[in-house]
């Protein structure tokens, strides 16, 4: 492990603060993994941030690119990274050297929120590992939950695996293949971990078409109870289903990367790299699925803990100054910190005052609704439940209310081709919610699934994009097709739609062709 990962000594005054803040957080009901803090200088911070928080990853130029971006924005005074924490057990969090004590306390309180979220939100259970470092079935969660999430080690292992391939095959070849895999990185199934692997079919099982089950009947009733036409139709249906079973994949497969791992003719090092890319993509997935909830939860708790328990009076101004920066929205952008924290507060308030359930929904007296207060005090219990059982999509879907949209001045926007700019479209609740959910669905990625691995009976791959009103970006799509061909090693077809008309885009390794389909 690298030098600083072992050098875990925190200055004693910060270690004392950590102990104090964590005990306050635990008293407030947060439940987190043990957390190891590191103090980093700003260039170390930029390095670690470029590696998304991990001290050791496989070599790739994009980390260098990210590092340059971060260091330049730091040097020009545009942004600085205050805090970083990774989903690992124990969790690692980083503090920036030279920050004021108030800032460090703020970071620690914020981190407690994040780690509690990592440990308790259901999405993150897909990152639990077994002793061999493979992901486990997240559906089972024993009491005394203390999962193995040694992703720091796992990422470092990925690093050494890739370095070994580089030493054997050469950096250019390996790097190029990594680039191709990264182009496919978002073609994973968010539910893959929860579904588990589909059971392998027993190859020797029922070669014969099983007989159509007949209802019991006496001989003379047979032709009425089990009419021949019906039996024949059923037989054909079963036959067809069986034919379909033989297709690969039997059902459209959204986990394109898993499908390629299982079926593409890959060399061993190629398979190894594709597997690494897929595992890491799945690791980061929960963080993308819960961005609003996770940041909102951490912000909710840092502000609650800081203002009620942690700070003394002389620090409050500096804290408020900083906190205002974190939660600021500018230029009409949504700030996930802000949206999240406000929505949690909204939920807490509603459940404290009993503003839910049938009676509340049915009430259409505005005055009564405004003063509705049953003094149930269920707010705290509710938000803890929410942080365990929801992700961003369900969070917004269930708890966004018209009142909330109005108070928070939310709006939906669209591209105006007449004025060549993005314009505010509406402040209607329905439209806002629709847009927000569309942004969050599948983490903003198009839905694409493998349809057939033997398209046209020529071993070509057929993918289908479920078009939901927005076209794919054409130039990118063509490049991704190249990457697919590189992995599949046969021509690849993509069913999608352009300007409302269905088309098939095909890439055969040399050129792209587009064919209009009959609608």
């Amino acid at each position, binding site marked *: 492990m690298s030098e600083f990962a072992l050098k875990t000594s925190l200055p004693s005054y910060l270690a004392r603060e950590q102990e104090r803040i964590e005990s306050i957080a635990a008293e407030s009901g947060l439940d987190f993994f043990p957390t190891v803090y590191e103090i980093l200088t700003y*260039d170390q911070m930029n*390095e670690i*941030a*470029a590696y*998304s928080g991990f*001290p050791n990853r496989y070599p*790739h*130029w*994009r980390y*260098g*690119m990210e590092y340059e*971006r*971060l260091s*330049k924005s730091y040097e*020009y005074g545009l942004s600085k*990274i205050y*805090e970083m924490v990774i989903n690992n057990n124990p969790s690692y969090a980083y503090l920036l050297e030279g920050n004021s004590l108030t800032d460090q306390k703020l970071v620690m309180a914020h981190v407690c929120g994040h780690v509690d979220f990592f440990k308790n939100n259901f999405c993150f259970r897909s990152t639990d590992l077994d002793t061999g470092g493979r992901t486990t079935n997240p559906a089972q969660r024993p009491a005394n939950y203390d999962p193995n999430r040694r992703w720091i080690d796992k990422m470092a292992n990925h690093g050494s695996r890739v370095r070994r391939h580089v030493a054997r095959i050469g950096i*250019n070849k390996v*790097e*190029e293949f990594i680039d191709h895999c*990264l*182009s496919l*990185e*978002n073609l994973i199934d968010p539910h893959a971990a929860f579904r588990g692997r589909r059971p392998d079919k027993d190859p020797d099982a029922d070669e014969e078409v099983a007989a159509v089950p007949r209802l019991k009947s006496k001989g003379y009733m047979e032709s009425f109870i089990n009419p021949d036409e019906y039996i024949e139709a059923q037989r054909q249906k079963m036959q067809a289903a069986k034919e379909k079973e033989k297709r690969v994949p039997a059902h459209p497969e959204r986990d394109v990367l898993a499908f390629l791992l299982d079926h593409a003719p890959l060399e061993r090092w190629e398979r190894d790299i594709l597997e690494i890319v897929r595992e890491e993509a799945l690791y*980061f997935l929960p*963080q993308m699925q819960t961005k609003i909830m996770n940041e909102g939860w951490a912000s909710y708790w840092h502000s609650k803990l800081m203002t009620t328990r942690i700070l003394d*009076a*002389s620090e409050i*101004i500096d804290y408020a100054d900083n906190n205002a*920066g*974190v*939660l600021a*929205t500018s*230029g*009409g*952008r*949504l*700030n996930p*910190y802000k949206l999240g924290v406000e929505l949690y507060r909204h939920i807490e308030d509603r459940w404290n005052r009993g503003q839910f359930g049938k009676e509340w929904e049915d009430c259409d007296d505005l005055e009564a609704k405004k003063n509705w207060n049953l003094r149930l005090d269920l707010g705290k219990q509710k938000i803890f439940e929410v942080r365990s059982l929801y992700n961003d999509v369900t969070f917004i879907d269930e708890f966004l209310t018209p009142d909330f949209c109005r108070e928070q*001045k939310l*709006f*939906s*926007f*669209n*591209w105006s081709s007449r004025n060549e700019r*993005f*314009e505010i479209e*509406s*402040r209607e609740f329905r439209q806002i919610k629709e*847009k927000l959910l569309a*942004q969050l669905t599948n983490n903003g*990625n*198009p839905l694409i699934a493998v349809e057939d691995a033997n398209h046209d009976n020529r071993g070509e791959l057929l993918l289908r*994009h479920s078009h939901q009103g*927005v*076209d*794919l*970006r054409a130039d*990118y799509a063509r490049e991704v097709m190249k*990457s697919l061909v590189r992995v599949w090693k046969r021509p690849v077809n993509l069913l999608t739609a352009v300007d409302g008309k269905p088309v098939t885009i095909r890439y055969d390794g040399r050129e792209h062709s587009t064919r209009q389909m009959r609608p």
Partner: protein
Amino acid sequence: MSLKIDQDHSRFRSIVRGKIRQNLRKYISQGELIGRKGKDLVSIPLPQIDIPRFRFGDKQQGGAGQGDGNPGDPVGGSDQGDEAGDGKKAGQGAGEHSLEVDVTLDELAEILGEELQLPDILDKGKSKIVNAKDRYTGIRRVGPESLRHFRRTYREALKRQISVGSYVPDKPVIVPIPDDKRYRSWKTEPEPVANAVIIYMMDVSGSMGDEQKEIVRIESFWIDTWLQRQYKGLESRYIIHDATAREVDRETFFHTRESGGTMISSAYKLASQIIDDHYPAEEWNIYPFHFSDGDNWSMDDTLTCVEILKQKLLPRVNMFAYGQVESPYGSGQFIKDLREHFQKDARVVTSDIRDKDAIVNSIKDFLGKGA
């Protein structure tokens, strides 16, 4: 201390410079080398390589935002509806957009100087007056009341009152005591007064297209920026010419398109005239820059140009710069003629600018001498 990231970083730099993995170059975010923004702020796009993925087209999707405004108003900022407010959390995965960085022109000139290793310009002793200039750079606890920093003082007072408990939220009266007061403090810096004028001349004949003009625009921006830093009180004059020359303002200079022939001598005559009228050589550092596609009307006119240069311009200027932009129509003869006639004269600098990528080298040609 060496960082592990250095290896990945140098790999990325080599890709950007096109040394390795040339096929990736096409994903490098394009963008103007430099864009002027506001009065003296510019934005530099950082090179970012976008890994292609299946994703939605940019403009169809729209999204949700937060803030003031009515339906139909433009959304402030951009399409990135969900970027974090202050970059607190590390970005995950590859960066998707080029980041625009605002820097002041002064900083920019410094970066430019470092990047191209430009020498500072030698003072020719034309003006050695030094002014003292005060710059407000910091905060201190003592100072005259006229320099009191209101916000800082207020903040200190607020802090003090909250910590001693004399702050009443319902009656928020903040009374600063002398100890709370904060004052602006300054540094005095010597500032040489030097006078310099740049005379830009551009061929706007039919053969100069938009692309060529774009190159001239970017190049002259950099020259402006660099000389601006070297000389306080820099003036710029603009001359456009086809078969005749006229003086125009900056805006017109970059947006005029004429058709017709090219008489370069007309521009040189006008430049000489301007110097005669306004800029006596003993007080001014004079920098004429001429951009053209090198297609002059006739050999006779070229000889006239050489004559004007020798007799009138060169004796009075610090340096004469000629940049030749490649165009599909120009013969590109003029640069050869100049080089032939002024082979030994260090005051004449010529540079071939083939495309946008050549701008950087050409700036180095022009400014690398420190003349």
